[in-house]
């Protein structure tokens, strides 16, 4: 069994434009690996080749050159699809089906039947907090609910690799936080998560390793802390420090040749944290 969940080697994808013999190189000699059990984020602006790479890994597209493998299997091999759970950007499901029917439909496509399938549907609806909307048709679901049923659908056959395309696009901060928590939980339970996003803050929160794609090429890749650390700077956050202590810190720094204080001030919470705090307090007060 391969300990690499995804292995992309020298992948190139070229699209022909109409009949004019014009070509667009969407992905250019791309190579990267996603290890089993890690959360890997592929980030880049729109049109950088993220979705094309994802589609090749999913077997929806064939590479023009190079190869993509999933747990050692060629991505075109149908067995590879049994190992993958996929949540597309803006999930596209049959609007005439209810949440439970959707999970049953995808479960059956994965060969699940009977009690095993029914138990799985119940568990997943509970996991994504949609038990109350299980029998409502997807046409009446909100964007966040669709994303959650999409996530449940991606886990239906208990895959080893979960591929998420912009998992929090269009979802409100609370829904976004819930999806982030679930991704972390998936990692803790040994799932491999491969996600594409251009929401950098969220990628930073959940990913172990990151690849930065631009114009179809990998520009930087590595462990997140290594990529974003500023080696020559150190951050120090103090609590309950008196003005005298701060003055002594200033003196000590001034006495050290080559050292200087770059910035100083009160750390701020993010707007997202503030929003979630307010929402949670309101919910508590309502109870």
């Amino acid at each position: 069994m391969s300990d690499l969940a995804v292995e992309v080697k020298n992948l190139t994808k070229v699209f022909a434009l109409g009949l004019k013999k014009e070509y667009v190189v969407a992905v250019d000699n791309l190579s990267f690996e996603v290890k089993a059990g890690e959360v890997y984020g592929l980030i880049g602006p729109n049109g950088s080749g993220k979705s094309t790479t994802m589609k090749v890994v999913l077997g929806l597209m064939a590479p023009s050159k190079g190869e993509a493998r999933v747990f050692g299997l060629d991505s075109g091999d149908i067995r590879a699809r049994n190992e993958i759970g996929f949540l597309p950007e803006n999930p596209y499901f049959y609007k005439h089906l209810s949440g439970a029917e959707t999970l049953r439909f995808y479960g059956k496509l994965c060969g699940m039947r009977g009690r095993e399938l029914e138990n799985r549907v119940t568990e997943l609806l509970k996991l994504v907090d949609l038990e109350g909307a299980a029998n409502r048709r997807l046409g009446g679901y909100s964007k966040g609910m669709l994303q959650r049923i999409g996530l449940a659908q991606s886990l239906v056959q208990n895959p080893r690799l979960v591929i998420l395309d912009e998992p929090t696009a269009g979802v409100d901060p609370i829904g976004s936080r819930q999806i982030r928590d679930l991704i972390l939980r998936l990692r803790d339970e040994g799932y491999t998560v491969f996600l594409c996003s251009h929401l950098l803050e969220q990628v930073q929160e959940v990913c172990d390793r990151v690849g930065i794609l631009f114009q179809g090429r990998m520009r930087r890749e590595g462990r997140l802390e290594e990529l974003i650390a500023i080696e020559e700077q150190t951050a120090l956050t103090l609590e309950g420090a008196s003005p005298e202590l701060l003055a002594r810190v200033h003196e000590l720094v001034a006495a050290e040749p080559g050292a200087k204080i770059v910035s100083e001030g009160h750390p701020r919470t993010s707007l997202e944290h503030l929003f979630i705090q307010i929402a949670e307090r309101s919910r508590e007060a309502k109870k």
Partner: protein
Amino acid sequence: MNAETTVPKSSPRGAARPVPLFSPGRVATIASGTVTQLVRMKTFYFLLAFALVVVAVGNFNLPATPAKELSMIKKVSFGTMDLFAWLFAIVATALLLPRDQEDRTLYTILSKPVRRIEYLLGKLCGVLVVVGISLVIMYGICAVMIGARESLFVSAEIEAMTSSGRYSPEEIEEQVGLIRQQGLRPELGIAVGASFLKAAVVAGMTIFLSTFASSSLFTIIVSILLFLIGHAHTMASSFWLHSSDNSMIVQMLVKVVKILIPDFQLYSFSEGIVQGEAVVYALVGQMGLVTLGYLVVFLLLSLLVFVDKEF
């Protein structure tokens, strides 16, 4: 999202699980999904229009003998049934594939272990089930109408002939027999079967077109066009191929059209059955085989286009 719940696992994860070469279960899942989709799209509403046509035809008082009137009612009802069946097969099939592609539902389906032939076959079977159910319902509506008119005509005829006192019981029996021959007979089920076979070929042809068509509208228009050509090309080809003053290119073109487009005129044997002619069961069996052949060819052609299609 439920914070306390751990991610449930249905079975231990390990090496790649085998995927059968062909799974009837997956075909059945896609087919039943297609049936649900078509039913919830309220496609059966067209049956109301059909019922209205049949009721209207059944209540015309034509200046003809009862047998002729019954024959006319049958002809119009079964013609309408046939029209609704093939038109429904085209529209329903044309809506499915391009719609899945436009809505990108296809992404989530094909990213599961589903072979493309299973997807195509599932869609086709789903449409055929709905066409079959529709035909049974339409036949039911026709049967009620024809049966009611038949018994009305028979009792009126017996009463008229008996009260005149000029006819012997044998003559009355003969006259009633003539009416019954144009009434509700079990053989009419074969005519319904022929409509189903024709609609199946139409659906197969439409599914092939929709594998490379860019929209549902294009698929519907081209399918109707090909259906009409398929009805006329036997006549047209016999004219062109036997005409002495046409070029080699025209002759080749006619032959190519003859090969590529199904001959829908073959299914017109059902018109004779509706008119009370005897059923040639060997011909019915032959038509079943021809239909199966067309379906296999169209599915293979569809697969040829669809198997490497990128989404």
